[in-house]
């Protein structure tokens, strides 16, 4: 396929869609799917076929719309000349609502199911990564192309050198969305520069490439499902980002590492890869150029540590997912010892928009050091749970109270937890902190991959810390001692707090141990594992102290130095 063919395909698809004056989008994301959206879609299709609108309404299943708690979500779109389609959103739609929904098409919306999009949940969001999620059918490449998909790839292949692509990404200020926030352009430049022959390598036969691009879709944080929604709702966007990355760094082979627990994401990515291969956007000599790029899917198998770059590589190589010391970094010494670019799903989903609209546009969004938007999975004790995308620099208060709609059941806000088991709890007094990498780190938490869990005043913060530590303990790979034995001891001490057996001595030891695990562990899992404990100790220390046993360690006290204790015998 060349650019002309792409344009033609897009035109054709758009014309076909415009021939249908109405579209009904039924969310088929995991949340709505679980709420029965498949039945709703069938009912709507049947109803349309029976109605006078037959042939004028297209019913399609789309990716996540974000407001998962109100699922199944249905959107009715009406084409308008020279403007974005007018749309009406319905929540909690059941199959038996189908006749009413179809009857209302072209007329007044169904009041009972109507979801006002003029509320902060929608108006305060800014969608870049998720712009097509919930608009397009994730199982049809034509739909993606019709909305401008793969234009960025052709722009890159036809007009830009690899180093120009890297410059563009660098100037955009994009930083890794996997959690640590490493500048993406710098990472690409390092891989592009890296010499594949520097380290002795063993590349298995059948694997040709000397450099690799890996998409990290091993979203393991409990309470996070951003990457899942992107992979399920807009898989081609991820592929396009990967192909561009491959072109920029000089790699010909890519791997998407996805959790096996995400069967729908795996299925949609497989479909997307097949479709892209069929039209010549993946494979040898893409778009008739000299550039070739292939993508394979590798399944994770349930190990949180494999989100760590070097552990992920070990897993793709077919081994236990053990991290190894860095340096050398994967950018120089990665998969099978070759230079390897590893980017998170959300990072790669940002690439095409940056190429299309330019680095300056992207850099105009966000704060001085954190550009663009961030997708969060907003969950916990908050009215509107779901998937949101917000510009960097928005405050936590806006997220929790405007977008999230505040705390339900008349309870009070207590803390918001970001970054999952690697992050921390942020209390009320810091709610006006802008969301960017540096500010969250300064508060003892991290941006993380995007889990955002709201806790109300009924939450026991020591229990929260213990919960996360149990997670880290069970997910520790066991290779290095501070993480393997340290997380187990932290968990043990926290359990003592919860069973009324902790003493002041345990509190002191807990603090010392957190410092050891944080600084002596081998990889990010161990280094960040103490964060939930440290942040709750910092902001909710009184909750720990209130749990100390009342008789404490009160069986006398040590005298320590004999010089003083025994001075009377001298």
């Amino acid at each position, binding site marked *: 396929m060349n650019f002309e063919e792409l344009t033609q395909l897009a035109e054709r698809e758009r014309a076909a869609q415009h021939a249908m004056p109405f579209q009904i989008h039924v969310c088929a994301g995991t949340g709505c799917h679980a709420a029965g959206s498949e039945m709703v879609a069938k009912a709507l299709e049947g109803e349309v076929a029976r109605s006078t609108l037959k042939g004028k309404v297209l019913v399609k299943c789309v990716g996540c719309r974000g407001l998962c708690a109100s699922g199944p979500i249905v959107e009715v779109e009406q084409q308008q000349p020279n403007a974005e389609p007018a749309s009406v959103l319905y929540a909690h739609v059941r199959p038996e609502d189908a006749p009413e929904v179809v009857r209302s098409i072209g007329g007044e919306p169904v009041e009972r199911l109507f979801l006002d999009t003029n509320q902060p949940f929608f108006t305060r969001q800014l969608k870049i990564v998720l712009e097509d999620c919930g608009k397009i059918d994730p199982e049809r490449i034509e739909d993606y192309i019709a909305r401008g998909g793969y234009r960025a790839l052709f722009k890159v292949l036809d007009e830009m050198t690899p180093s120009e692509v890297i410059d563009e990404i660098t100037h955009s200020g994009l930083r890794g969305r996997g959690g640590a926030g490493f500048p993406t352009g710098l990472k690409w430049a390092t891989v592009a520069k890296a010499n594949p022959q520097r380290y002795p390598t063993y590349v298995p036969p059948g694997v040709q490439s000397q450099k690799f691009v890996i998409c990290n879709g091993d979203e393991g944080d409990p309470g996070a499902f951003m990457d899942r929604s992107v992979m399920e709702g807009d898989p081609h966007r991820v592929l396009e980002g990967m192909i561009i990355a491959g072109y920029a760094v000089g790699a010909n082979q890519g791997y998407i590492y996805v959790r096996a627990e995400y069967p729908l994401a795996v299925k949609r990515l497989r479909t997307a890869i097949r479709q892209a291969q069929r039209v010549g956007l993946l494979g040898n000599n893409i778009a008739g150029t000299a550039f070739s790029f292939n993508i394979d899917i590798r399944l994770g198998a349930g190990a949180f540590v494999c989100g760590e770059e070097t552990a992920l590589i070990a897993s793709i190589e077919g081994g236990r997912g053990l991290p190894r010391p860095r340096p050398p970094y994967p950018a120089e010494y990665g998969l099978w010892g070759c230079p390897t670019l590893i980017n998170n799903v959300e990072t790669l989903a940002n690439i095409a928009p940056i190429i299309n609209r330019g680095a300056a546009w992207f850099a105009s969004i966000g704060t001085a050091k954190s550009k663009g938007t961030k997708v969060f999975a907003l969950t916990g004790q908050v009215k509107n749970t779901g998937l949101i995308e917000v510009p960097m620099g928005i405050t936590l208060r806006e997220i929790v109270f405007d977008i999230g709609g505040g705390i339900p059941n008349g309870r009070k806000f207590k803390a918001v937890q970001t970054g999952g088991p690697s992050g921390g709890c942020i209390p009320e007094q810091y709610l006006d902190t802008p969301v960017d990498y540096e500010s969250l780190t300064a508060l003892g938490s991290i941006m993380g991959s995007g889990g955002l869990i709201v806790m109300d005043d009924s939450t026991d913060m020591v229990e929260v810390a213990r919960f996360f530590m149990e997670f880290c303990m069970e997910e520790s790979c066991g290779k290095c001692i501070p993480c393997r034995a340290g997380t187990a001891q932290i968990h043990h001490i926290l359990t003592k707090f919860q069973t009324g057996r902790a003493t002041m001595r345990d509190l002191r030891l807990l603090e010392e141990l957190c410092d050891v695990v944080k600084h002596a562990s081998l990889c990010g899992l161990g280094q960040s594992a103490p964060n939930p404990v440290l942040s709750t100790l910092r902001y909710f220390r009184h909750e720990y102290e209130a749990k100390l046993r009342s008789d404490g360690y009160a069986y006398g006290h040590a005298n320590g130095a004999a010089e003083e204790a025994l001075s009377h*015998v001298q």
Partner: protein
Amino acid sequence: MEKLKLATVWLGGCSGCHMSFLDLDEWLFDLAAAVEVVFSPIADVKQFPEQVDVTLIEGAVANEEHLELVRMIRARSRMVISFGDCAVTGNVTAMRNVLSSSAEAVLNRAYRELPTFNPRIPDEAGIVPPLLERVLPVHAVIPVDVFLPGCPPPAPRIRAALQALIEGKTPEMIGREMLKFG
């Protein structure tokens, strides 16, 4: 000048540490000149005295009597020394903890499963103090000032520690001679 009041007690251990203590041979005479032994398994004193300068605790805390005693020792002693590996780590005494976290299982194993003759857990009131669920090192129960490891601590190590204390100094527990477990 007062003489240093020294106590030694024997909790959950084999008495090997006390044997090693006796291995100090003729230095015991020098010791006797410098300290007053106010309580010890090798002295006939029934009640732990009110005021003690230094108490050496051999053995781990294994039953309720031990628990009560170490708390009393802490209250009445200026310096408490964990004397030997059982006191410092739990050592062999604590190996029963691996078996189960309940004392019941340990008693069953020792008195019911293993004996070939008259298997029965001694249950007459007041004859045996109840076992703790888990055997604990002394510092898990009370603050300890000095740790004197070894199974048993070699006599020269005991001497070096006591010598320092007699001189009113804190023993320097450094290096293989002073610190090796086992």
